[in-house]
C-alpha cells in the first residue's frame, strides 16, 4: 500500500472521476478550462440516463479525471468542441450516430459508425483535373481485419483518404450495460484479441477506482507482467508485418518466429496464447511459481538475444531501410493536434506514455523510450518498436524475478473516493487506451472504451497524404492499428 500515499491528491485516488455538470452554453468554456488546467482530452461519448441522452467529455491525466456532462435539452444539440479539441472529431461523429446528439459548429457532421450508401455523405469532395477514387475493402487481399478505404488520387498520388471502419462494430458497450463487472470485463477483453490485457486492465482499473479499491503490490506486478507480455508479442509481430509490407521475407519470417515463441511463453505462464481471462476485477488470475518464473526469464533472455541479433540484421539491410525512410511522415505538430498516442506519437518526438503515470501498476520510475531519431516516418515507427522491445524485455526480467503469488485489491480508507465513475488509462502496445465505467447498484451502467487505435486512426489518413498508393500498406502496417477495438 505504498503507492497511494504519494498520489492521494485532493481529487481522490487516481482514476476516480469528478463529474461536473455543465450547461450547453458553458460546454466549450468548461473544456477550455480543463485544457488550461493541464488535462488532456480523453474521449467524448453519449450516455443514456433516466432523463434522456447526455453528452460526456473526459479530460484528465493520472491524478485527476474530470468528466464534463452536458444535458443537451430536448433539441439534443451541444456546441462542438472541434475548434478547441480537433481530436474530438470521431467522438462527436460517433455520439451523433449512436446517441443522436448533434454538435453545432461541426459541419458537415459525417456519419462514422453508421454506413450510408450515399457516398457524398461520408467522403470529402476532391476535385481537379484527373482526380479519381480508388475503393479498397472491406475485404482485403491478406489476412486482415475489415475496413474500407477510399483513396482520392491523381495517378498514383494520394490526395486524400477517407476511412470507413466499424465493420466489426458488435455493440459491445451497449451489451455490457447492466452486467456484473466480471461479465462486463469480458466484453472489454473480447473487444480486441491483440489488446485483450490492456483493455481488461483498463476496465478493471476503472471499476476499482469507482469502487474505491486499490490493488496490492502483488496484483500490480501480476498485471504489469501481463501488459508487458502483451506488448512483447505485439511489437515482434509489428516488426514482422512491416517487413512483409515491403516484401522482405527473411525479416518477416524471423520476427514471426520470435512472435510465435512469445505466444508459447504466454501459454506456459498464463494458460492462453493471447492471455485471455488472465485479468479479473479486484483479484489476480496470474500465479507463477518460482521455477516457472525462472524458466520464463531464461526464455526471455534468449528471446532478447535473438531479437537483438535479428534486428541488427534489419538495420544493415540497405534495401529494407531505403524503403522505410521518409515514408508516411507525421509531424510532431500533427501528432499533438490530433492527440496521437503510443509508439506512433513517440516516433515524432511526443514523449507520452501512460506507463509513466500508473500508480496502480508496478512501473516504478519508468520513463518513455526515445526514438533514435524522431522523424515521424515509417522508419521511426519501426525503430520505436525495437527500442521499446528492449525496454519491455528488461522490465519483464525484473518483474519475473520471483514467483507471482495470489493477490487482490484492498479497500481504500479514504473517505472521499470519487463516487461512481472510474477511469482506467493503460498504455497498450499501440498507445494509451482509456476506459470509463460508471457503476450503479454493483452493475455497469455505462462502459466506454477509447482505444489507442481509435485515437490514432485519423493519423493514418494524414500520413497517407501525398504518398503513392502502393506505399499505403506499408504506412498502415507501421501504425499496425486494430480495427476490432476501434469498432467495438
Amino acid at each position, binding site marked *: 500500500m505504498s503507492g497511494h500515499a504519494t498520489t492521494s491528491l485532493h481529487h481522490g485516488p487516481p482514476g476516480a472521476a469528478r463529474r461536473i455538470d455543465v450547461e450547453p452554453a458553458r460546454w466549450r468554456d468548461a473544456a477550455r478550462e480543463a485544457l488550461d488546467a493541464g488535462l488532456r482530452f480523453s474521449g467524448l461519448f453519449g450516455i443514456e440516463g433516466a432523463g434522456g441522452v447526455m453528452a460526456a467529455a473526459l479530460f484528465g491525466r493520472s491524478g485527476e479525471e474530470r468528466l464534463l456532462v452536458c444535458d443537451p435539452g430536448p433539441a439534443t444539440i451541444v456546441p462542438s468542441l472541434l475548434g478547441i479539441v480537433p481530436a474530438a472529431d470521431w467522438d462527436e461523429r460517433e455520439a451523433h450516430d449512436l446517441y443522436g446528439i448533434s454538435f453545432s459548429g461541426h459541419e458537415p457532421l459525417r456519419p462514422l459508425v453508421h454506413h450510408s450508401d450515399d457516398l457524398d455523405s461520408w467522403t470529402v469532395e476532391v476535385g481537379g483535373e484527373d482526380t479519381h477514387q480508388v475503393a479498397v475493402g472491406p475485404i482485403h487481399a491478406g*489476412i486482415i481485419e475489415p475496413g474500407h478505404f477510399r483513396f482520392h488520387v491523381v495517378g498514383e498520388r494520394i490526395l486524400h483518404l477517407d476511412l470507413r471502419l466499424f465493420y466489426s462494430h*458488435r455493440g459491445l458497450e451497449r*451489451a455490457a450495460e447492466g452486467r456484473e463487472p466480471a461479465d462486463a470485463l469480458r466484453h472489454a477483453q473480447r473487444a480486441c*484479441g491483440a489488446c485483450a490485457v490492456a483493455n481488461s486492465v483498463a476496465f478493471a482499473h476503472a471499476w476499482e477506482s469507482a469502487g474505491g479499491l486499490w490493488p496490492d503490490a502483488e496484483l500490480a506486478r501480476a498485471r504489469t507482467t501481463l501488459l508487458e507480455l502483451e506488448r512483447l508479442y505485439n511489437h515482434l509481430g509489428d516488426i514482422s508485418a512491416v517487413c512483409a509490407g515491403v516484401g522482405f521475407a*527473411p525479416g518477416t519470417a524471423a520476427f*514471426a*518466429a520470435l512472435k510465435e515463441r512469445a*505466444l508459447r511463453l504466454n501459454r506456459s505462464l498464463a494458460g492462453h496464447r493471447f492471455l485471455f481471462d488472465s485479468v479479473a476485477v479486484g483479484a489476480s488470475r496470474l500465479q507463477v511459481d518460482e521455477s516457472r518464473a525462472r524458466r520464463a526469464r531464461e526464455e526471455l533472455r534468449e528471446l532478447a538475444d535473438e531479437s537483438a541479433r*535479428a534486428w541488427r*540484421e534489419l538495420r544493415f539491410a540497405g534495401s529494407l531501410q531505403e524503403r522505410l525512410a521518409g515514408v508516411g511522415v507525421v509531424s510532431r505538430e500533427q501528432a499533438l493536434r490530433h492527440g496521437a498516442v503510443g509508439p506512433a506519437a513517440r516516433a515524432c518526438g511526443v514523449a507520452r506514455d501512460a506507463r509513466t503515470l500508473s500508480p496502480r501498476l508496478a512501473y516504478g520510475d519508468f520513463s518513455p523510450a526515445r526514438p533514435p531519431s524522431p522523424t515521424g516516418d515509417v522508419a521511426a515507427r519501426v525503430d520505436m518498436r525495437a527500442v521499446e522491445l528492449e525496454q519491455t524485455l528488461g522490465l519483464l526480467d525484473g518483474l519475473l524475478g520471483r514467483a507471482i503469488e495470489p493477490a487482490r485489491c484492498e479497500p481504500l480508507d479514504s473517505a472521499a473516493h470519487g463516487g461512481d465513475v472510474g477511469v482506467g488509462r493503460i498504455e497498450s502496445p499501440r498507445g494509451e487506451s482509456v476506459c470509463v465505467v460508471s457503476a450503479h447498484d454493483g452493475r455497469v451502467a455505462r462502459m466506454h472504451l477509447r482505444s489507442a487505435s481509435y485515437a490514432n486512426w485519423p493519423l493514418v489518413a494524414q500520413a497517407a497524404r501525398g504518398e503513392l498508393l502502393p506505399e499505403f500498406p506499408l504506412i498502415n502496417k507501421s501504425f499496425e492499428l486494430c480495427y476490432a477495438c476501434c469498432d467495438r
Partner: protein
Amino acid sequence: MFLLLRQLQRLRRQIALPPEERRGSLALRHVDTGSCNACEHELAATAGPHYDLQRHGLNIVASPRHADVLLVTGPVTRRMAGPLRTAFDAMPEPRLVAALGDCALGCGVLGSRAELAGPLEEILPVALRIPGCPPSPQAIADALLELLALHHGWTR
C-alpha cells in the same frame, strides 16, 4: 541478411516439420466478419515458419475468385453480412465454407443483438467447423489438412 537466413535455416531444422507426404492443394480465402482479431493472428501463424501450411498446398489467396474454401472468422456483424455474401457468390464451384473460431460457430458470442446478423450457419452452408477461442495454429492446420485429405480422396 546472410545471418538472418542462416538463423532461419537453423530454426527450420529445430522445428523438424513432418514431411509433406501427399499431393493436392486448396486455395483459401479468409473473411473477417467482425472477429476480435485473435483468430486472424492464429490463422496467419499457420503460414509462419513453425507450421508452414503452404508446403502442403494450402494457400491463402487474394481473391474469392481463386478460392476453393471460404474461411470465415467472427460472429458476422450487420455490416459484414453483405460483403460476406458477395465474397461467397464470387467463388467458383465447387466451393465450401469453413467456420474458424467459436464466434463463427455462434458459440459464446458477445455483442448487441441489433448489431449482429449471424450466426454464420444461417447465412451460408458451413462444411467445416474449427472450434476454439481462438483455435490454435495446430488445430487450424490439422483441420485444414483433414479437409485436404477428404478433398483428394486420401486418408491421413
